[in-house]
């Protein structure tokens, strides 16, 4: 007796969630939820985060200089702090893409469901990365300005 028609399981129950969400069944047209941000909204959100990072870093450099530290010290530490946030978010973003499915599977099969999703993680990391990158740029710009003034 052939059991061929017993093959073809609904594999969405064993791994990557609903495969249709990945556009794998319908010729690549991935479904987008209604509350997903548009590209313009995304750019605006990231821009705002970058601006926030730049302002915070600029203020931090100024505060350190005014508290008696050298411009070089202030610049190096604030830039490094921005780079730390940026590096962490880059790692978090790509890590979410790389092993997001695995983490979701671990949550499903071993309990400890924290509602963590790959998409949510990527969005959060992108915002965090913008803050970090803005901080790096902000620290550099303020340092150049301070160096030309003093």
């Amino acid at each position: 007796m052939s059991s061929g028609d017993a093959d073809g399981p609904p594999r969405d129950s064993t791994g990557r969630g609903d495969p249709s969400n990945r556009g794998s069944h319908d010729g690549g047209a991935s479904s987008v939820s209604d509350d997903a941000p548009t590209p313009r909204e995304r750019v605006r959100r990231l821009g705002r985060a970058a601006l926030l990072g730049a302002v915070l870093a600029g203020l931090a450099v100024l505060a350190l200089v005014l508290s008696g530290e050298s411009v070089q010290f202030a610049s190096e530490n604030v830039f490094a702090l921005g780079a730390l946030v940026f590096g962490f978010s880059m790692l978090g973003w790509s890590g979410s893409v790389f092993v997001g499915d695995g983490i979701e599977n671990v949550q499903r099969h071993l309990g400890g469901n924290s509602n963590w999703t790959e998409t949510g993680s990527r969005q959060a990391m992108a915002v965090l990365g913008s803050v970090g990158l803005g901080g790096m740029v902000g620290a550099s710009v303020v340092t150049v300005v301070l160096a030309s003034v003093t």
Partner: protein
Amino acid sequence: MISKRFVIKRLLLLVPVLFGVATFVFAILHLAPGDPARVIAGQRASEEFVNQIRTELGLNDPIWVQYGRFLLEAVQLDFGESYQIQRGTAITEVLRNRLPVTLEMALYGQLFGILLGIPTGLLAAIKQDSLSDHLTRVGALTGISIPIYWSGPLLILLFAQVLGWLPASGRIASQYSVEMVTGMVTIDTFLSGNFAAFKSAVRHMFLPSLVIGIYSMALISRMMRSSMLEVIRQDYMRTARAKGQGSKITVLKHGFRNALIPVVTIIGIQFGSLLGGAVLTETVFGIGGIGTLLVNAIQVGDYPVVQGTVLTFAFLFTLVNLGVDITYSYLDPRIDQ
């Protein structure tokens, strides 16, 4: 059949991972206290000499210039030279000697995890709520909970001290000299045809690999059990059984491959734990791999070695996950469509 497009997409993901790690390490080392120039010059050196070294290393340049230069050199796999550990030796050379040691241990550990974890998980699922299931679950929970710095010495105590079956440390008995080809002693001794040396290398590698693989085995076993239980309850499995197919064939032919999908995803994730565990395992068993190199480099402030080592760890981790993705898309062909 794996599509090229899928593999290329995953390969491109290596770029942000390594870029992120490089940036992260650069930032950490710049925020950490201590002066690399002072490390090189020594504590008694004059300020002038230290400043001269600082200029030579480019540490007096603006930090964004240093960052850009670091990234450019990293792209060319040039991490500079070791300040302290092997003063003046290129980092790539330092890593080339140490990497195979850790890699060998991690690979055998992973192999232990897969070869023992999958069958025990499968058995526990098929014989749900039986004694073997309970034993497997308790074993897995214990394996996940036991830290390496505790299980390592205990296993040394049992197998090396009490029973005397296995050596407590090192990679091969001192009477054997091995011509290094791959840097992995078990493979090199096997290639040289020296069976006695090969046996010695395997005996030396057994305990560290077991210790590092226990956690992996426990996690894989638990995932396999949970995944298999879910698959067993699917309609298509019931259909197969209703058509008169034996339960063993049903499980192995229709269920096993589908149950493997979530298990495969975590094999890649916990390879990172294996590499992290390598630091402790190498210390416990006195094996000079990349893990101990990293710890030593942090202690003496050898920044280029730290940067090179961490980037190598990241590269290995992403490479393993790429392999996992390819396996994954083989198990579930819809993924790379």
